[in-house]
């Protein structure tokens, strides 16, 4: 580790990219000029392949050379490529400011091309626009969105004779009843630290943004803090759920994979997760039926909001070698055809209206919430730096293991937030 400096990494990646570029060059030449080749780096493993195929079919003679990788690896790779000038024409970009390859982070130093002049940019709903833009310009072709809620295993629910609760009081009763029957309500895989935030986000949506939709603007203006906001209420409710027995034993020793196993096989009645988990649950139990419902946090069902966020979209390299083709690809992704292929494969929902998308029955409630504007972005997408989220993730683990307290965590998050970008 000690010898792995970014320079060495940069050198290695550059060398690899150079080799790739050389081989690509000769190939493009035999195609009759480089103008028909598009380079693409994507995190949409398992779905971008189909989109590329459809794009190549719609544009005869065009060849897309693409790479796919997991989020962690991708973030390292793309940053190195951008800073060494070897990035592809089109690349995955996360919305907002949550992570090292997010919209704000890459647009700020000028690595992304302004896409505001593209036909779909004006059609984006406000919630998506807020995270696809940087300083009023659109940089990110966000094609899909995801929501966080309680995903129930229908068969296990029927067996337990219980129905999804729609108020906070009913939720706790539901947890007690489920526990009494020997199948805890929800699986929780808090060993993987990104999982810790999901229940919190689901509760924060209603508790914080219900009374105050402008909470983020107030935070940005320094008029609000985590510690003195209903973030405390939400965190308190998270811990109440834990104490009431809403989750299986030992959530900190249970990883994401193991938590899916519990919910898929009916060892718990459900799992609080993003809609992306449904496809994974179905892999583990092909006969199961799973439905996503909003997680209530108050006693009035009309208050409930769902955290729903833009997923990773695509940005165009400001120094794209083939800008024309890059824009063509991004516009294809945002066309009804591209959008439907992507969302169907990923089990997400399209960001633009009127794509003729057939919503999977498991996501009807989420689609309804999105339509009626009862969603808020994932909280971290509008935070000034990635540190706030990392502090929250390890802090939640520390609270669950008795090493920290909600008060201490929220104060730390406030301090990181104030440190700015």
């Amino acid at each position, binding site marked *: *580790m*000690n*010898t*792995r*400096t*970014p*320079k*060495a990494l940069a*050198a290695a990646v550059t060398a690899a990219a150079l080799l790739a570029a050389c081989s690509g060059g000769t190939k493009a030449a035999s195609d009759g000029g480089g103008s028909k080749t598009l380079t693409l780096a994507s995190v949409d493993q398992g779905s971008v392949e189909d989109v590329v195929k459809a794009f190549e079919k719609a544009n005869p003679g065009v060849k897309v050379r693409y790479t796919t990788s997991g989020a*962690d690896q991708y*973030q*390292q790779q793309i*940053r*190195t490529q*951008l*800073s060494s000038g070897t990035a592809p024409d089109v690349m995955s970009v996360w919305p907002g400011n949550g*992570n*090292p390859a997010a919209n704000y*982070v*890459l647009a*700020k*130093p000028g*690595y992304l091309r302004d896409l505001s002049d593209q036909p779909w940019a004006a059609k984006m709903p406000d919630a998506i626009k807020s995270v696809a833009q940087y300083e009023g310009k659109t940089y990110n072709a966000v094609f899909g969105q995801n929501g966080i809620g309680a995903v129930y295993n229908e068969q296990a629910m029927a067996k337990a004779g219980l129905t999804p609760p729609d108020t906070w009081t009913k939720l706790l009763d539901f947890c007690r009843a489920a526990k009494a029957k020997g199948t805890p309500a929800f699986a929780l895989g*808090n*060993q*993987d*630290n990104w999982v810790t935030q999901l229940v919190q986000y689901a509760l924060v949506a209603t508790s914080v943004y219900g009374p105050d939709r402008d909470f983020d603007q107030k935070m940005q203006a320094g008029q609000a803090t985590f510690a003195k906001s209903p973030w405390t209420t939400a965190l308190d409710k998270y811990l109440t759920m834990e104490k009431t027995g809403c989750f299986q*034993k*030992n*959530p*900190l*020793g*249970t*990883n994401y994979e*193991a938590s899916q196993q519990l919910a898929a096989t009916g060892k718990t009645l459900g799992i609080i997760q993003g809609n992306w988990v449904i496809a994974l649950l179905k892999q583990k139990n092909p006969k199961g039926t799973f439905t996503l419902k909003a997680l209530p946090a108050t006693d009035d069902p009309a208050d409930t909001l769902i955290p729903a966020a833009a997923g990773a979209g695509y940005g165009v390299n400001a120094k794209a070698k083939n800008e024309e083709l890059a824009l063509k690809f991004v516009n294809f992704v945002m066309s009804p055809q591209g959008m439907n292929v992507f969302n169907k494969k990923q089990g997400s929902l399209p960001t633009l209206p009127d794509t003729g998308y057939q919503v999977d029955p498991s996501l009807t409630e989420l689609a309804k919430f999105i339509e009626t504007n009862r969603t808020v972005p994932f909280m971290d997408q509008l935070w000034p*730096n*990635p*540190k706030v989220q*990392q502090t929250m993730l*390890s*802090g939640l*683990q*520390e609270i*669950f*293991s*008795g*090493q*920290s307290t909600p008060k201490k965590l929220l104060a730390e998050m406030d301090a990181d937030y104030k440190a700015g970008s």
Partner: protein
Amino acid sequence: MKVVPARPGRTGPPWWFMAPALLLFTFVVLIPSGRGVYYAFTDWDGLNPDFSFVGLGNFADMLRDADAKQAVWHTLLIAVSITVIQNGVGLVLALGVNTAIKSRNLLRVLLFAPAVVTPIVTAYLWRNLLGPDGAVNSLLGAVGLGDWRQDWLGNPDLALWAVVGVIVWQYAGYSMVIFLAGLQSVPQEIHEAAAIDGAGPVRRFWSVTRPLLAPAFTINLMLSIIGGIKLFDQVYALTGGGPGHATDTISTLIYKDAFTLGEFGYSIALAVVLTIIVAVASTGQYFFLSRNERAAS
């Protein structure tokens, strides 16, 4: 093998034998690392071409960073306990399979086997075995030790020791092989002579075997202490440094600060500190042990 005493003035092979390897090492490791060190004194975020020189700022931040201090403590704890336990177990195993027991060849292979498995694979394997419903807890339940069942990786008081346990499981066999090689080079005649002089097994181990094993000790201690200090993959795969920061080591912190938080300057500064710790620990230990070796022989 006949040992030819080195002639004065010719202590080793000609230096230019090393030239190709040295050249490669210089260009692939030394120069990039040296240039990397420069960034430890900047606020580079790994992306933005504009960054400024911050002098010793990153090192000063480190002194205020509770996570960093905790990580240094964890790293030292892991390095010391791995060094002691892994070599203790390795030595006992080596003594065991160096006897005339029947299945010794099979045992040697079995005990060494975990060391040839990729660390990341071992870690993922143990991550499942150590889960709340994993094989370890099931086994404890099955043999009537249900009360001993633990949330091995989820309990911050146990997680670090679970990590140490996994590493010892994997590498004790490796230490064993090195000790075994040492043991087999101890001439049988000396043992017999000592036995005739009336030395019991413990006395023979202490006065005959131990001093002759000194080179094996040197190499084993050095390997395990360096391995322990720069430990990354097993920790990252087993716990990701968690719960919270309960198992973060300097290496996991370097990774997180660079690739999750984009604080490259700070993380390179941490890496520089790690390099210094490894260098000091290993050279110090090397000189100490080789002096012992000379004293023993």
